């Protein structure tokens, strides 16, 4: 009888605590993005300024540094300069930089590429579809996607040169 009471009371309390805990967790620690660590990176297809189309799935086996950026975003520029200086080196090690612009005017992207001598392709995201699929709100947002197409890290905001390099190191396949 007493045992039964304890079990009933404990289970009722437990159910309520779990429900409330989950609600509070969802509400207060809503840091998790739409796409985040350990998720399968949603597949997408984007076109660069020259009309070359790339599909994420085709990059299986390579580490993908997926970066969302805009020309007016100052932190994006710093990041892109680091990427530019190290692109060739990491490309040889099996890393692809997929730099997706947030649907800006094509002219602005082109001029930006010229001015900063960007040596890797810049992709357009018409209708912001890829941005929407990845739940990107602030810029720059970066997703590190491993050779199996799994997101290993989601980064928001500016990063120092050494941080960007560390991220690239992480992406090298078959370490």
């Amino acid at each position, binding site marked *: 009888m007493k045992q039964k009471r304890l079990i009933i009371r404990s289970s009722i309390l437990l159910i*309520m605590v779990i429900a409330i805990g989950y*609600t509070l967790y969802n509400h207060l620690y809503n840091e998790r993005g739409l796409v985040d660590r350990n998720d399968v990176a949603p597949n997408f297809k984007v*076109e660069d300024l020259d009309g070359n189309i790339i599909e994420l799935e085709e990059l299986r086996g390579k580490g993908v540094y997926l970066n969302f950026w805009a020309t*007016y975003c100052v932190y994006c520029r710093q990041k892109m300069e680091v990427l530019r200086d190290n692109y060739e080196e990491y490309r040889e090690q099996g890393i692809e930089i997929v730099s997706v612009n947030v649907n800006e005017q094509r*002219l602005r992207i082109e001029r930006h590429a010229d001015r900063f001598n960007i040596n890797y392709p810049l992709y357009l995201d018409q209708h912001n*579809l890829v941005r929407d699929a990845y739940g990107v709100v602030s810029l720059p947002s970066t997703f590190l996607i491993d050779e199996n197409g799994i997101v290993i890290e989601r980064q928001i905001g500016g990063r120092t040169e050494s941080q960007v390099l560390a991220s690239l190191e992480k992406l090298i396949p078959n370490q």
Partner: protein
Amino acid sequence: MEKVKCECGHVNPFGTYLCESCGKPLIEEDTPVANMRYEGVARRSQTYNRTIVDKIWNFFSSVKVGIWIIVLLLIASAIGTIFPQEMYIPPGERPTLFYEQEYGTLGKLYYQLGFHNLYSSWWYMLLIAALGISLVICSLDRVVPLYRALKTQKVTRHKAFLERQRLFGISEDTIDADKEIKIAEKMLKEKKYTIRKEKGNILAEKGRFSRWGPYVNHIGLIIFLIGAMLRFFPEMYLDEHIWVREGEEVVIKGTNGEYFLRNDQFIVELYDTDDERFRQAFERTGQQVVKTYQTSATLLRRTNTGAVGVGTELEEVKQYDIRVNDPLTFDSFALYQVDYKLNELAEFTFTLDAVNDTTTEDLSDVVFTVNLYDPEYVYEFDNGYRIEIMEYFPNFYIDNNNQPDTRNMIPDNPRIIFEVFTPDMDPDSDSGELSLIGVQVNEPLIGENDYRIRMIDVDMKHVTALTVRKDRTIPIISIGGVIFMIGLIQGSYWHHRRIWIQNRDGKIWIAGHANKNWHALKRDIDFVASKAAIPIPKDQLDEEQNSEGEEGGNNSDSTKQ
């Protein structure tokens, strides 16, 4: 804890005041009237206090605690309305500074204590959660024993139980008790009482279901709270914003890239100022009054599957005129008109003039339109002129390093640097004249120019803002509300009345109890007494009050529970 066996044979849980079966008082009290709250049953919570679980349980089972939680919630909620919440401060203001600047030290304190985001703060939500827990436990702890007690109650109650009812009387001498009780039974049936009989004694009962009113009400409240809680679960609730320019197609957030919306036209309709019917109103407001905000929209759906991005194919699903409170609905989504922006710059049309009239060339063919959302790089003309856009800043400003830059991609303050090549120049090797053009800005960048680019036309577009709303909790919240009201009505408009009539040694004993509205119970007894020779019971509380003044009435439980 020992169980208590009453002399009638019924075994009662520890802490029982009145035997569940015969009603004999098991714990002596000093008052002349028994405390009938919850039928005198043992409220479990207050009797077991052994483990941690019991202690937590007992804490939340206390009505006192429940009331304190409500009081704290009320105070906190009230404080939250003193200054505006963060989401209502003017857009662009920084809350860190705003509250202090606007409201002084109090405002600063308000911000520091977190009241600017009160209703979603962790402690406010915990209070609500505590209220929910309190509701569940309080109700469970009371409704279960009460239900049991009312179900097991015996017709023939103990002498002491009758004596200690608020309405109680004994006939002085009776001719034929059984006969009178039979008449009384008939009268009570007429009053729609349910009659139970045992050895010539009767228990007449009416409106027992009203006792469940408060619990039904609580169930409604709990469902309501669950509904509110579900908003924080995935797929249950969505509240997003989209801005759509006229002619533009935009993906609808939250639909996983499946649905798109095209803004075919946005209009703001005003009331006719010349209309005689509105003359007085206009005199009063002194300004134009909006009649309608309307977005004529087309809903599109993606038809291909696979990767998002390039190659998306869309088909039209439906067209709808979205107005305020008249949303476009599809699947579980609704799109509400919420904001707008009129006359956003969309296109500039330019022509070329020679600054000195020395040239004889005909420049009238040099007319070109720059789409500010996606400008061309080069504009070439039949007469050999060529104009290139060297730089484009949709929302121009000078940054901290004194460099021209754009704030974002919205053409609110567009500036374009044009390079003009005459027919005799080679665009690859020569450099042309540079001009910086914007709204009310037209200046050569290096030295004097021979050509001047002149704006001859501007095209503007309206932009509409829509809220994307999905709320699957509405049915749950409504059901909770309806149940809440049913419980309220059940407990307010009906009340539980009981009359015990017993034949004890040829005398008629009568006792009555109501959980409220004693007056109606007394009238029912009067009605019975008009035909049957039963004693009119006395109200023992009245007597007490008469003898002790105002002190005596505080045992009344007439409105509690």
